[in-house]
Every structure is written in C-alpha cells, then in structure tokens.
C-alpha cells in the first residue's frame, strides 16, 4: 500500500474533467420539481423521470420566456458540470422550453385553480372604477402599437386626462412577470386613480408573464383598481381573472377610463347654458308681466339704463358662448337670441322703488289674476320691508288701464 492519498479537491477535479469532457453538452427531457427562483435571479431545480433525477441550474442571464412550474415536462439544453463544493453533478442549462403546449395549458389551469381556491378571483374583492378618473397609470411595452393606440384613444375621447406611463417588459417569462409586478407597485405611488396593465395578442408563451403568481399578487395588493387588458378578446390570463376589471383589448381599457368624452361634456355644457338662458329669460318675462300690473304704459317705458343693461347681459353672455360653440349649435342659439330680443326687459322690482308693492303667497309672487280668498295669508313686499297680512275681503273693480299692460298707449 504505497499508494499516495489524494485530496478531495484533486479527486473532484478529476471527476469534473471526466464528466465535463466525457458527456459535455446534453439535451434532456424530464419533469421539473423543486423549482426555485432565487432572489439573485438564478433558478435551481431538479429534473426527473420515474427512475432518476438530476439537479439543474439556469443562471439569470439565460433567457427564459415562460415560468417553469413543478410537474411541468420540459426539454433543457445545457452542459453537464460538477459543483465542487457539494460534490454534485448538475446540468448548467442554456435553454429550456415546455415539452408540449399542453404543459403550459396544464400549468395555467393548476395556477388558476390554486389562486381561485385562495380567493384571488372573488367577486367581493373587485372594486368598481372610480368616478371621476383624472390620472391613469399605464404599464405596457414602450414599443409597438398598444401604447400608441391607448394614448390615441384617450386623446380623442378625453384629452384632459393625465397619463403616467411606466414602460414595462410584457413579453415572455419571469423577467417580464417581475417587471409587471414592479410596475404595478410603482404606479401605486404615483397618485393615479386607475392602473391599466396590458399588451397586445400573442402566443400562450408570449402572454405567459401575465399567468404568474407574482403578477396575481401584485394586482391583489394594489390599493388602486387595476384593469387588465391582455391580448385579444379570446385570450384570458390569470391577470384578467385577478384584476378588478377585465378589458377585452387595450383600446377597450382606454375607453373604460374615458367614460365621459369631451364631446359629451361640451354638448352638456351647451345644453346647460341654453337652459340657463331660457330660464332667466322666462323668469324675467314673468316678472315683467307682473310689474306691468303695477305701472301704466308711460311708466313702463321709463326703464332705467341699469335694468336694460342687465337683460342685455343675458343676451351678451349667451351669444358669446354660442360663438364658441359648433355651427349647428350657433344657428340654434341665434334663433333663441332673436326671440329674446323681443323682451323689453323691465326690471320686475323697479315699481317698488316708486312706492308700489308686490304681493306674494308662500314665497310666490301673485299676479293680477291669481285667485284670492278672504282669510288667505299674504306677504306684501315693499321697497324696504315685507308686510305679513291677511285678506279681509275682495272687491271687484272695473278694469283699469293698468291691466291693459300699457301696450295700447303711445
């Protein structure tokens, strides 16, 4: 036994050479178990079949466009290596893909079932979109048609909206999932009313980053309602299930956050302005008829400049607004203005300044023909006070020139 003992390192080095040179690059199919995504970004797992298992490692720099799940059958390409410190041989994977599309579907169904059981999709958790929406956060790819289409839609419908855009990786696997989750968290601190996460259509593998627990958790912990708008109408992802609202497409999401369009509001403004104008004119006209009951024809013509100017102001303001309105609305407005020009603008309370009074009942002005009964409580409004009175008796008198509204005299 003159043999010389060798060190563990030396032996391991020998094994390493043997395995790495003797076997080298491999293409292996197996089922994934104990999959761990370390915080460093490296992935560790075991590949197995019914008889054997082998350790695997995939460094963070290796692209992976889906999220491996335990139980999934995958094909990996890599080199056999030895991890000296643990005397362990393993596959250093450069690439990994699901063995068949069926595995992705299965992984999707499993995750959906698990999250469903944990209450991620409960209707009670879903929040309605707030009203009004002033600021919207968008997480999607900075390249491609999706962000452009959404911004175009928002701009066309309601450009007063503010958009906070977080360019996000939305293609493929883990990196994208983590970036989407980070984007949701970041937008939660940006004082937005709603967050849209989305991307355009693609293969199940392309959309896979929206089918992960990381994204589900980020949406669930968002304190701001999230709209998920992934793919086309027919693509449904975990993200769609967890989100408060699912939009069929990114453009549909852009429409959801602009429920009231600029056009709607402009038309409502015009309608309100028209109503106000008509109401004021009607009210003035009613008051004017009342006032003519108190004054004769000549007095009616001695309207103060001040009062004329006020009624003119009604016309001015409505005309000015009409000028900025659309042509169609403007034409309508001009007709209204013509009709209003007929108003002679008599300040209804002007007679009070000349010593006349207005009779009111329950806050409403009475005109000359309002029926009154003995015993009715009335208020007599004079220039500086209101007299509470009760009707004793009513005596009919011969019609005077006052009731002919002064329109007959020159």
């Amino acid at each position, binding site marked *: 036994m003159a043999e010389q003992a060798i060190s563990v390192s030396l032996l391991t080095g020998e094994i390493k050479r043997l395995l790495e040179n003797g076997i080298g690059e491999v293409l292996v199919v197996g089922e994934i178990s104990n999959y761990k995504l370390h915080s460093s970004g490296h992935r560790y797992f075991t590949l197995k079949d019914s008889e054997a298992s082998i350790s695997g490692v995939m460094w963070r720099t290796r692209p992976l466009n889906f999220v491996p799940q335990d139980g999934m059958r995958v094909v990996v390409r890599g080199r056999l290596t030895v991890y000296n410190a643990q005397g362990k041989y393993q596959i250093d994977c450069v690439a990994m893909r699901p063995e068949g599309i069926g595995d992705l579907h299965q992984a999707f169904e499993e995750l959906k079932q698990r999250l469903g059981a944990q209450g991620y999709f409960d209707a009670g958790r879903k929040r309605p979109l707030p009203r009004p929406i002033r600021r919207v956060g968008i997480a999607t790819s900075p390249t491609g048609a999706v962000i452009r289409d959404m911004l175009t839609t928002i701009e066309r419908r309601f450009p007063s909206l503010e958009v906070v855009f977080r360019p996000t990786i939305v293609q493929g696997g883990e990196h994208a999932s983590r970036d989407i989750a980070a984007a949701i968290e970041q937008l939660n601190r940006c004082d937005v009313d709603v967050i849209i996460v989305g991307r355009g259509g693609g293969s199940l593998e392309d959309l896979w980053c929206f089918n992960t627990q990381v994204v589900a958790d980020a949406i669930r912990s968002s304190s701001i309602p999230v709209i998920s708008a992934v793919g086309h109408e027919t693509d449904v992802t975990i993200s769609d299930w967890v989100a408060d609202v699912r939009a069929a497409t990114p453009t549909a999401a852009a429409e959801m956050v602009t429920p009231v369009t600029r056009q709607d509001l*402009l038309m409502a403004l015009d309608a309100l302005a028209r109503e106000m104008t008509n109401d004021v004119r009607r009210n003035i006209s009613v008051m004017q008829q009342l006032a003519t009951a108190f004054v004769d024809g000549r007095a009616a013509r001695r309207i103060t400049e001040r009062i004329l100017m006020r009624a003119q102001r009604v016309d001015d303001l409505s005309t000015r607004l009409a000028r900025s309105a659309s042509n169609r609305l403007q034409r309508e407005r001009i007709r209204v203005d013509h009709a209003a020009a007929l108003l002679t603008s008599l300040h209804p309370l002007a007679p009070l300044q000349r010593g006349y009074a207005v009779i009111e009942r329950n806050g409403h002005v009475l005109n000359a023909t309002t029926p009154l009964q003995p015993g009715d409580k009335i208020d007599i409004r004079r220039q500086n006070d209101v007299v509470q009175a009760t009707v004793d008796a009513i005596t009919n008198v011969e019609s005077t020139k006052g009731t002919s509204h002064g329109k007959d005299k020159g």
Partner: protein
Amino acid sequence: MAKTKDEAPKSLEEQLKRLEEIATLLDRGDAPIDQQLQLFEEGMALAAGCRAYLEQAELKVQTLSGENPVIP
C-alpha cells in the same frame, strides 16, 4: 409630478357641479331676480371656462423609468 400642479383652484368636476346647481336654481326661478342675474353670470362664466378648458386640453403623458430595471 410637477406637471400635474393644478392652476385652477377648482377642478372641472367641481365647476360642473356648481354649474348644475346654478341651472337647477334658475329652473326653479324663485330667487329674487337680482340674484338670478348674478347666478346666471356666474353660470355662463363657468360654462365658458369649462368649454375653453376642454377645447384647449392636451393629453399629458408622464413617462416613468422602471425603478428596478430587470435585465432580460
């Protein structure tokens, strides 16, 4: 977020709400006519202001950089 600073003291929603209040008051028509004219002036100014705001609005987009850029 400096871009979002609001110049107007009142938001569009607040102005629209006030405008609707005024329209309701004028529709009821029981306020003294002086007050009605005041309301009317306020309402027309609000309507013109909102209209100008909406017509001049331009989409504001603020782009964030990812906080922890993930290297693919």
